[in-house]
């Protein structure tokens, strides 16, 4: 798995945190927002699209470390093909789906990545035995499916807001489902490139 850290600290958010004077007064200094781009995170799946039942390990990701992980508990979200699950709630029961051990949750919001600056906790949903918090299917969740090109495109303006398995928050904008943004070859599919901002301070709901 090649995840490349591009930048750890975004100058963009310095201005924001400096505005929050109340928080500056508190005794423990706040950790800074972590803003990163993850490139070509591979999320393979076996089967599907008329090739039999879907199976295969999910690719798990941890926002606090900014890395993919194979831990069975220390993960926040996980990818398999176009499916995204969270480490919270219960399993839908598909093949090879990991047990949920944390309290992660998610919702989708429409807007630009920078304009979505606060978490709305009432919107959170967890995975359940009837469906995932991030709905699957073209046009339902984070992507549109173009049947004539057999192509999955992230819907512009869709931001995924997550609660991590241990109660902090992150927001994600998926940029591409294809390796190096190149959708011309089918084999390039299932490589995620996304931006995220991680709020490492427990209880702080702003980005």
């Amino acid at each position, binding site marked *: 798995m090649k995840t490349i850290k591009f930048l750890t600290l975004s100058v963009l958010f310095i201005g924001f945190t400096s505005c929050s004077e109340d928080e500056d007064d508190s005794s423990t200094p706040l950790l800074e927002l972590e803003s990163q781009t993850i490139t070509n995170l591979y999320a393979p799946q076996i089967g*599907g*699209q*008329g090739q039999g039942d*879907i199976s295969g390990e999910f690719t798990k990701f941890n926002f606090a470390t900014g890395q993919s992980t194979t831990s069975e508990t220390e993960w926040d979200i996980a990818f398999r093909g176009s499916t995204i699950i969270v480490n919270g709630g219960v399993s839908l029961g598909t093949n090879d789906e990991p047990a949920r051990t944390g309290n992660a949750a998610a919702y989708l919001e*429409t*807007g*630009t*990545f*920078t*304009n979505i600056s606060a978490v709305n906790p009432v919107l959170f949903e967890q995975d359940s035995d009837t469906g995932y918090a991030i709905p*699957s*299917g073209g*046009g339902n969740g984070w*992507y*549109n499916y*173009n049947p*004539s*090109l057999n192509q999955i*495109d*992230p*819907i*512009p*303006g*869709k931001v995924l807001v997550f609660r991590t398995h241990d109660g902090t928050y992150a927001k994600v*904008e998926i*940029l*591409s489902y294809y390796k190096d*943004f190149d959708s011309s070859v089918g084999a390039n599919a299932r490589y995620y*490139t996304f*931006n995220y901002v991680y709020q490492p301070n427990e209880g702080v709901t702003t980005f």
Partner: protein
Amino acid sequence: MSLNKNNFSLFFLLFLTVTVFSQERVSDSTKTETLGEVIISATRTLRQLSSLPLPAQLVSKKEIQAVNSLRLSDILNEQTGLITVPDFGGGEGIQLQGLDSQYTLILIDGVPLIGRSAGTLDISRITVGNIKQIEIVKGASSSLYGSEALGGVINIITDTPKHGTHGSINSRVGSFETYDTSAEIGYKKNKISINAFINNFRSDGYDLNDTDALNTVEPFENYTFNTKLTYDFNDKTHLFVSGRYFTQGQEYAASGDLRGESSLREWNTQAKLSHSYNDKWQSDVEFYATRYKADEFLDTEDNFRFSASDFNQLLIRPEVRATYNPTDKSAFIAGVGWNHETLVRTDFSSKPEFNSPYAFVQYDTNPTEKLNVILGARFDNHSEYESQFSPKVALRYELSEKLAVKGSVGYGFKAPDFRQLYFDFSNGTVGYTVLGYNAVPTRIAELQQSGDIVNLFVPLTDFEGQLNAENSIGFNIGADYNPISSLKINLNIFRNNINDLIDTRIIANKINGQNVFSYYNVNEVYTQGLEFNSTLNLTTELKISGGYQLLFAKDKTAEDAFENGLVFARETPSSPSIQLEKDDYFGLYNRSRHMANFKVFYDLIDWGMDANIRGTYRSNYGLFDTNGNTYLDRYDDYVDGYAIWDIAINKTIYKNYRFGLGIDNLFAFTDTQNISNIPGRILYGSLNIQF
């Protein structure tokens, strides 16, 4: 390019020979003074084109012959505001006032063509070899013609024989191994006239994209047979009978391993008995029947039948009309008729049958010398969808001898087609299902019973009613201006408000993760713009014409989404999303903002020669959403605008022999990625013999 060089060189040599060695003057004694162009489609009565309150265009046989057109698609593409758009099945449908092919009614001698397997009526299947005139009426015309005449009507008027026995043979040979051969023979004497026409058109097709095993257009061959008979019982009673048969075979391939054949067969028969009771009263009794049959199959390499499909549509239409002319300044026309339609098709839930009686009436009057008013309405009852009432009003007022203004408002509709009502199709490899509106309740119940349905998103009660016909109100306001006798200028501003557009939506999830789709009335769409046409007869020998159409075609729901800030895009694939504004919405797919044409016709009467150069232009357009937000916006990829130039030169010798040479698409424009119906440069030679 696979040009048959031998044949072409032969034509070229012949052409040169006759051009160089036959400089004797060809007397053009038949320079008849016409009373002005006459059109029948606009009012279903013979009307002078120049005094019509509706936007209409005529294409004459002379123009068709001068440009050596072969198919209806060739010649219509050169007319202002018209463009053919290829569909997935390879057919070419006409776009008129920014409306899709399914909203324009195509008639031959006043009766409709059928065979819209996926909505598109492929006009490249119509030969122009025996066409006397093409009439194009723009704006909703359902008040006379009922369903499909939402954007307008295109009526192809075929040749009628002249007195005596005449015949002609026409042959054109061109690039891509394309051969077009026609023969026509006509006889007319006293009470009887009869003519017969046959056309053979074949081509090796072409391939714009060498990377796959398929051709862009596979080789095909078709035949058109047409015969007409008229008989005058006496001065007052006339009989007209015509028959047309079209058959086409084409190779059909889905991949290198899957090959087969597609075939089309179509016949049309029309019989009409006309009687004049006196100076004021006249009536027609007409019977029309047509069948369109399309079959195709694919076999694997080891001759296993991979897939087969068929489409078999029948229309039977008796109609009775009466015209009454109380004065020479006014005319009534009224008619009643019955459409009976059946379809047998692969993937249908039943063998549907449509029955639709209808009645129409129209009053055309000139209350004053300068004012013309047309009022009309039609009522279509229907067995499968809500009945339609289609009124229309049109006015024309002569401000001066040089300037007239005109305007019309009309209702147009298009009935839901068989597919939208009865389709029952499940994709074998991917597993999704498409159901027609009427097929939903029973099929969903079956799928629920078999445990295939996980979630039903739309309650079945939504399918208890009837699917509405797509309908529109069309407005046209224009002016005819003739500042000098040799210059004609026409301007028309149009707006079509279309409601209840039928679209597909997901109605249920299946256990296999795929969706069930069905049809529903949803969108509100409009097309608006202006059309400008001008013709300048510089001398009797030189005619210059130009046309332009400005078009905005938009979905109102999409406009609202942009206005409400719900649409986002990325400037580059890797950049963060930005919010789009109303101005960023381009509109519907496959619509160009600008289309224009420019033509110069030069008649060297003394030389028995004529030559022309024609250019058509369409500005950039989008074929599909390329940046994931499902809308066509400023940041999508567009097909670049393009211009196509054609030239033709013809020479007549010994009065009855006419040779032609020409190049279509002179600069060999192609866009192999996006435009499948432009094969590249076409060189051709043609020969026409009259006897």
